[in-house]
């Protein structure tokens, strides 16, 4: 056993394995993926036209949903085939020896199917940023239309399409925003593993994510979908071809989410290094574990609901059509049964990241580590019992209302733990006001508003006033954007020096933060008031008296949008145009990921580290180092094995 755990790693990685299978991976990249995807799209369309063109509904409306659904599905499959994500299972299927994608290849490896969790993490960074900026541009279009209550720039159809596209893209993006880039990049490093439990599943979920991005974009040329991101049926069943992009896209993204969740949970449970006990697990890893549980248990509901919707639109089933025996409530319940855990999928990782950064920048131990971890698990559990608070006015059984009011309000108790952890850590601290720290503080400021307005929404009588209004919209922007997106950018400023080996420009980082923070609040606080004053969501016409507030929010939103240009400029300038190498541990962190060289070697750790102390012993005199990297020769290693603290998984990690 000792020999397996301490195998010298240099040069051991997958690249030295013989190229089995057909050896195709080295020729495959995004360009071949595009070509095969286009072929798949055309093939699917052709098959759909052969099957479905005789339908009465197709003849009447001139719209063949079978062709659209098959085209999108085959296109996505073609994308996976073209990038090489299916080479391994296909080779297994025919009994050929498995194939190992090349790891070398400079910048080109970021455009290929790669099994290195750090490459996948960077690919996720680029993909999620692309998602985020696409959604952001659509938000600018929405605010432009709302500049005037009755004069229209976009027109009602385009406006609804833009609103739906913005919401869906942002929700898809946000459910992977932290889990994808930072979860994949950081978790193995933080728990002392050389890789994820299932590297192929990890890469597969990334390429599904990119396929979902393209599928959801195809809605626009087809006229978009009129339902917003919630996709309520039976409007969903009535809608044009863009609706198929929504359903297929969400099913693809959802599949990727389930796979990513399984993989992260398996990694955290089985791949921890010796000595990485549950009590020493970094708080970010706890948040990822709680999120992984939500991904695995909640998302399948969405995939099934989407499948029902696809069947209603193509095979003329009637899951959601009342007149034929279905129920419009079915979609609402299925969607929100996924949709509310989804909200916490988009909140918990942010909490985890902030918990990770605060001790570093306050120079203190994390306050209430156990309470913080418990809070995340509590939020994850409770999130499955709150979904009907989206349906308070929908006409469901009123008896359920007090119960769902209670569960929803109860969730603010574990959420309060997160605040306790943050505020407790600030007590008598020595705060270093670095960009990541500012983003952490901003999260607490924003999420407080988001959380308190959430309590208002959970109260049924108040909900009668604010349900479905801009108040709701501002509330969840305060939690998702004010929480998760702020935490994400804080995390990028914190970890990018390790991920890229380059130092980010401090002045530009600070400029990005202040513009984003100020104008985020100036955009969404007025929108809270607008909602309270009676403006429903997703409308292109609103009351004349609300124009000043709407215009104020629009102008602020433009500047908020521009703040991301500062980030792009900073990113490109610091990483590529004028790169300055980053020190190994610029922030003085005790995190395991900061103890390895920059750039991080493909195998992460030369010897599997042995964790010897708690992760947050900042400011403790004579605190032991976080881990022993000496391998089998070190005494800590033998002690860890004898104590059998955690690492059975690590022992198996080749």
């Amino acid at each position, binding site marked *: 056993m000792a020999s397996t755990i301490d195998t010298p790693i240099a040069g051991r990685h997958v690249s030295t394995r013989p190229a089995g299978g057909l050896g195709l991976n080295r020729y495959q990249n995004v360009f071949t993926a595009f070509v095969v995807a286009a072929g798949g799209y055309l093939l699917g369309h052709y098959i759909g036209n052969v099957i479905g063109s005789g339908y*009465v509904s197709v*003849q009447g409306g001139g719209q063949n949903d079978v062709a659209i659904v098959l085209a999108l599905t085959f296109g996505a499959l073609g994308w996976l085939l073209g990038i090489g994500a299916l080479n391994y299972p296909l080779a297994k299927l025919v009994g050929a020896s498995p194939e190992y994608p090349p790891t070398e290849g400079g910048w080109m490896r970021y455009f290929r199917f790669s099994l290195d969790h750090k490459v996948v993490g960077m690919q996720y960074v680029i993909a999620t940023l692309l998602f985020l900026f696409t959604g952001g541009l659509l938000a600018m279009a929405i605010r432009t239309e709302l500049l005037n209550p009755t004069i*229209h720039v*976009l027109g009602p159809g385009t406006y609804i399409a833009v609103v739906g596209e913005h919401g869906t893209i942002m929700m898809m993006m946000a459910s992977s925003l932290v889990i994808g880039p930072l979860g994949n990049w950081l978790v193995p490093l933080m728990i002392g593993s050389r890789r994820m439990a299932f590297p192929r599943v990890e890469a597969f979920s990334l390429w599904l994510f990119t396929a979902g991005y393209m599928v959801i974009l195809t809605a626009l040329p087809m006229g978009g979908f009129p339902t917003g991101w919630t996709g309520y049926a039976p409007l969903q069943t009535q*809608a044009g071809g863009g609706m198929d992009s929504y359903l297929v896209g969400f099913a693809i993204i959802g599949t990727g989410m389930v796979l990513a969740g399984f993989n992260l949970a398996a990694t955290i449970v089985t791949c921890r290094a010796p000595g990485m006990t549950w009590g020493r697990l970094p708080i970010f890893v706890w948040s990822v574990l709680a999120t992984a549980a939500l991904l695995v248990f909640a998302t399948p509901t969405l995939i099934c609901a989407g499948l029902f919707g696809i069947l209603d639109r193509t095979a003329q089933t009637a899951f959601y059509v009342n007149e034929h025996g279905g129920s419009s409530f079915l979609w609402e319940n299925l969607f929100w049964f996924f949709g509310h855990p989804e909200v916490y999928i988009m909140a918990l990782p942010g909490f985890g990241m902030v918990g990770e950064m605060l001790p570093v920048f306050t120079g203190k131990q994390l306050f209430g580590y156990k309470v913080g971890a418990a809070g995340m698990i509590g939020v994850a559990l409770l999130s499955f019992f709150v979904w009907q608070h989206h349906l308070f006015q929908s006409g469901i059984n009123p008896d359920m209302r007090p119960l769902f009011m209670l569960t929803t309000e109860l969730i603010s108790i574990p959420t309060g733990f997160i605040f306790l952890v943050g505020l407790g850590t600030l007590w008598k601290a020595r705060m270093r006001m670095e960009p990541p720290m500012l983003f952490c503080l901003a999260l607490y400021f924003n999420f407080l508003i988001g959380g308190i307005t959430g309590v208002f929404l959970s109260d049924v009588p108040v909900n009668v006033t604010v349900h479905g209004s801009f108040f709701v919209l501002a509330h969840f922007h305060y939690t998702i954007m004010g929480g998760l997106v702020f935490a994400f950018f804080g995390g990028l400023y914190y970890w990018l020096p390790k991920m890229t080996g380059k130092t980010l420009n401090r002045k530009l980082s600070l400029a990005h933060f202040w513009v984003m923070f100020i104008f985020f609040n100036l955009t969404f606080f007025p929108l809270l008031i607008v909602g309270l004053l009676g403006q429903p969501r997703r409308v292109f016409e609103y009351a004349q008296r609300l124009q000043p507030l709407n215009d104020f929010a629009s102008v602020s939103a433009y500047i908020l949008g521009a703040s991301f240009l500062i980030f792009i400029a900073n990113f490109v300038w610091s990483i590529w145009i004028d790169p300055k190498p980053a020190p190994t541990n610029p922030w003085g962190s005790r995190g395991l990921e900061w103890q390895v060289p920059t750039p991080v070697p493909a195998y992460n750790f030369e010897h599997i580290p042995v964790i010897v102390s708690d992760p947050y012993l900042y400011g403790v005199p004579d605190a032991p180092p976080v881990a022993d990297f000496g391998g089998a020769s070190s005494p800590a290693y033998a002690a860890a094995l004898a104590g059998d603290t955690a690492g059975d998984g690590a022992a198996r990690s080749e």
Partner: protein
Amino acid sequence: MKRGARIGIFAMLLGIATALVIMTSMAFLRSEPITVDYTTAQPKGQPVHLTLQTVSAIGFGDNPNWVSYLAESPQGKWVHSTLWDLPAHTTIDVTLYQYDSGGPLRNQERGVVQGVKPTLNGKLFSLIDSYKGNGVGHTFSIPRLGINVPLAGVNGNAKNFCNAAPCPLSDAHNTIKFSFTTPGPGQYRWQCFVPCGLGYLYGNGGPMSTLGYMGGFLKVVA
């Protein structure tokens, strides 16, 4: 690579991205139907003549089998558009040629005339019983002005039933005439309230849900 070269490459890529975004946005805005201008057709204060027709199938474009409204431009050309610039506080004399067939209404309330005094082939009417005759094909309604005019359908089996726009007066049609006065400047939704989007659930998808077919705006300008 030198720093200047990198800046140049980045600026070029940024330019391409910006151009792509602008082009996509423009393509979207252009996908909206054009606006027909009636403001300059008459001297100020004179009644404006608005001539419209409804057809069972537009016959051209991306969705040839969708029902649609068409408007006659001041130059006498039939235009596939539902967006019209109209002068404020002016009488609009509407002449509507209904070429489409009809049937019973989903909601009979839409069979009641509101806000105007229309004539059907020269005869005043205030209510259409959509269970009788050829029923109601479409409505012309401006909710914010309280206007609703049901349009009696023609016989769908007539020999000279019009199947593609624009329909000539020699084809089977009903003529509906009425007048209303435009309010102050603003954009006012008008639409048909008969679920005539065949092949879509509840008949309200497709042409009912796409600007330029069964609904649009009166863009009233000062």
